C-alpha cells in the first residue's frame, strides 16, 4: 500500500549581509556559522535535530576543486550527518531536500548556499559555463551576453531601456527596507538613463552587483512544521526546467523553461514574487514568462539587483518570499531561481500560509 507524501513547508530563513567583498575564505565557513546559529536558534533547534543537509556552491567560483568540502566544518558534522551537495544555486539543493522529505526519510532539512564571487573575476569565470568547444574559447563575459538578450527584447518591443531603469529604481527603493542589501536608495529614472552604457544597451544599474554572501533555509514536514512555526510557508508547487544551451538556437526574449516551471508549479494568485533576475530586463522577461500581473508585488527585498551572492541568491529569493508568509504579510508567494547563461535553467517554488 503506497504511503502518501507529507506536506512540506519552509519554517526558517537566514542570510548574511550582501557585501562586495568579505575577508572570509572561499569555503564559506565564516559566513555560514552565524546564519546557522541564527536560523537554528530562531527555531529552537540544534544540529542533531536536522535530518538532512544539502548545499549548493561552485568550485569555479572559489577557484579550487572540492571547495564545498570544508564548508561542513561550519555545521560541526560529527557525529556524521545525512548530506548532499549540488554544483548549482542552492535553490536546487532546496529542491533535493524537498524531495528527500517527500520520501518520508527525513522530517527536517537544512539547506545552504554560499559564494565568494569577489575571489575571482566573475565576468570571466562565468564564461566557463558556456559551450567549451564553440563558445568559451571566445571568453564572452556575462554582461556582454546579457546585453544581446536585452537588445533583442528592446528591438522586439517587449521592454525598453526606460522600463529597465524603472526596475532598477524600484528595486533600490524597495531595498531601503532590507538591511542586508548591498545597494539601496532613492534614485530617479531620468538620472539613471543619463548614465553612460556599461555594455550598450546595458547600464550599470541594469546589472546585479558582484556580491559575497550566503543563505540558509530550514524545511520541515507536516506536524513537525506546525510545531516549529506558527505560520509555515507550505510548498504547494516546486518545479524546475532547463533549456537548450544553444544561445543562437533558442528564443532569448522569453524563457521556455521558466514558462514550463511556472505552469507546473501553479504560479497563479500570487501576492508576492521574488524573482532571481540578475539583469533588469530579465525581471521583465520573467514576469511575462511566469504570468505575473501588475497586482503582484515583485522583489520587495530589492532582489538580485541589490545583492546577488552567486549560488545563494536563488535560495535567498525563495527565503525572502517565504518570509512574507512566515510574517503573515502575504498569503501566497512565489520564489524563483535561475542558473546558467541567460536564464537557461529556472526553478519556481510556490508557497502559501494557512490560518
Amino acid at each position, binding site marked *: 500500500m*503506497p*504511503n*502518501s*507524501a507529507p506536506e512540506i513547508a519552509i519554517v526558517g530563513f537566514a542570510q548574511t549581509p550582501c557585501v562586495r567583498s568579505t575577508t572570509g575564505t572561499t569555503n564559506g565557513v565564516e559566513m555560514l556559522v552565524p546564519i546557522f546559529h541564527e536560523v537554528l536558534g530562531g527555531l529552537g533547534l540544534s544540529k542533531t535535530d536536522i535530518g538532512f*543537509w544539502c548545499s549548493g556552491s*561552485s*568550485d*569555479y567560483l572559489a*577557484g*579550487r*576543486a*572540492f571547495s*564545498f*568540502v*570544508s564548508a*561542513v*566544518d561550519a555545521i560541526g*558534522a*560529527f*557525529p*556524521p*550527518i*545525512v*548530506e*548532499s*551537495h*549540488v*554544483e*548549482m544555486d542552492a535553490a*536546487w539543493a532546496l*529542491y*533535493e531536500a524537498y*524531495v*528527500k522529505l*517527500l*520520501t*518520508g*526519510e527525513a522530517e527536517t532539512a537544512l539547506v545552504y548556499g554560499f559564494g565568494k564571487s569577489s575571489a575571482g573575476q566573475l565576468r570571466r569565470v562565468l564564461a*566557463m*559555463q*558556456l*559551450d*567549451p*568547444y564553440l563558445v*568559451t574559447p571566445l571568453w564572452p563575459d556575462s554582461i556582454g551576453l546579457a546585453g544581446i538578450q536585452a537588445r533583442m527584447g528592446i528591438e522586439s518591443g517587449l521592454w525598453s531601456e526606460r522600463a529597465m531603469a524603472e526596475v532598477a529604481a524600484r528595486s533600490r527603493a524597495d531595498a531601503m527596507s532590507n538591511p542586508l542589501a548591498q545597494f539601496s536608495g532613492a534614485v530617479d529614472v531620468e538620472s539613471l538613463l543619463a548614465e553612460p552604457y556599461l555594455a550598450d544597451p546595458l547600464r550599470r544599474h541594469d546589472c546585479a552587483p558582484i556580491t559575497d554572501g550566503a543563505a540558509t533555509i530550514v524545511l520541515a514536514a507536516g506536524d513537525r512544521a506546525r510545531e516549529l512555526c506558527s505560520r509555515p510557508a507550505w510548498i504547494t508547487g516546486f518545479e*524546475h*526546467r*532547463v*533549456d*537548450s*544551451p*544553444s544561445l543562437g538556437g533558442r528564443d532569448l526574449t522569453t524563457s*521556455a*523553461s521558466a514558462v*514550463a516551471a511556472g505552469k507546473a508549479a501553479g504560479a497563479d494568485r500570487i501576492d508576492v514574487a521574488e524573482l532571481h533576475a540578475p539583469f533588469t530586463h530579465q525581471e521583465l522577461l520573467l514576469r511575462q514568462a511566469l504570468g505575473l500581473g501588475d497586482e503582484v508585488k515583485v522583489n520587495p527585498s530589492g532582489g538580485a539587483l541589490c545583492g546577488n551572492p552567486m549560488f545563494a541568491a536563488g535560495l535567498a529569493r525563495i527565503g525572502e518570499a517565504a518570509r512574507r508568509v512566515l510574517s503573515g504579510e502575504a498569503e501566497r508567494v512565489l520564489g524563483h531561481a535561475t*542558473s*546558467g*547563461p541567460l536564464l*537557461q*535553467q529556472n526553478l519556481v517554488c510556490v508557497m502559501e500560509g494557512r490560518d
Partner: protein
Amino acid sequence: MAVQLAAVVGTGQTHHAAKRLDVSMAGLCREAVDRAMADAGVDWPDIDAVVVGKAPDLFEGVMMPELFLADALGANGKPLLRVHTAGSVGGSTANVAASLVRSGVHQRVLAVAFEKQSESNAMWALSVPTPFTMPVHAGAGGYFAPHVRSYIRRAGAPEHIGAMVAVKDRRNGSRNPYAHLRQPDITLESVQASAMLWDPIRYDETCPSSDGACAVVISSSATTGQPAWIHATAMRTEPTTFAGRDQVNPQAGQDAAHALWKQAGIRDPLSEVDVAEIYVPFSWFEPMWLENLGFTDVGQGWKLTEAGETEIGGRLPVNPSGGVLSSNPIGASGMLRFAEAAMQVMGRAGDHQVDRARVALGHAYGGGSQFFAMWVVSSEKP
C-alpha cells in the same frame, strides 16, 4: 516508507579507457545513456527528469557542464539536477534519482555520471597550489597510503592481502568487456614485483585514470525484463579531518551501512548479501571497507579476502566487474558500482555474473574517506 517503489530498469556504460579521443564529452555520455535506455526499453518521452553527477569541474575545465550537455542528455524542457559529492558522486547521483521516484515526484528518471579525465590531468586539478597551504609532498596515493599503513598495523594484516585484491579485481576485469584494464594473466608475484609507489601501496594496487560514463534508468515500475528493486539507500558525511577522527574505519561509513542494512531489513549482511560492488581505488580498501560495512568484525576483513571468499564463487563476491581497480572514470566510478550491483540482480552481468545473485550492494565513497553513498538492490520487490 516511500510513496512508491523504485527500481533500476536499465544500465549502460562506456568502454572505459585512458583516453577516449574518438568522442566529445556529449558523445561519451551518450554512449552510456543510449545503452541504458536500450537496456530499459525506454525512449526520451519516457524520461521525466535527468540527474547528472560528476567530480570537480576543474577536471574537464567546464563550469557546471550539465548546462552545455542539456541537448545531449535529452533534458530540454525537463528538470535537470547536478550532484557533486566528490568521489562518491556517482553513487549519490543514483540515490538522488532514486529519491525522485520513491517520493512520487517522477515515474522514470535518467541518472548519468561521467568523467573525461583526458581533457586535463587530475593530479593537476587536485593540486593547484593554494596559497598558505602546505604542499603534501606526497602525490595522489600519498593521502591514503598512511591510512592503509594504520589499517595494517591495527588489523595485523599480512602484507600479501593488498596484492591478492589486485589480482582478483584485475582478473575479474578481464571478464568485463567495458573494463579499462583487462589483465587475465596477472599474478600475486607480478603484483608484488610491481613498483612500490607509496609504501605500503604498490603500482598494481592502484586504480587507473579513465575516461568513461555510466547511466541508469530508475523507474517506479518494471519495463522490460527483471528489474533491480531498490530496497535501501544511505548517505553520510563527516569532516575531512577532526581531532580523534578514525581515518581507517570512518564513523560516517559505519553509520551509513548501519542505516542501509536496517532499511533493507538485513540483519547479517555477510549471509544475506549475494554480491557487493565496493569502491576500492587502492586494493587495501577492500578489507577496510568489508569491516566498515559490517560484513566482518573490526580487524577481520582481510581474513575474508585471504580465504578467497571475495572472489566470484566465494561467500561474498566483491567487485566481479573488476571494480575501480580496473576502471576509474572518477565521477562515474560510484555509479558504476551501483549499476554493476543492479546488473547482478537483473542477471545481466554477462561473463562476470555471480550465480543466483538476488541481493547486491553498491557502494561509493569520496573526499578523504568522508562522503559515503550506498544502495541495496534486489531481484525481489521490497
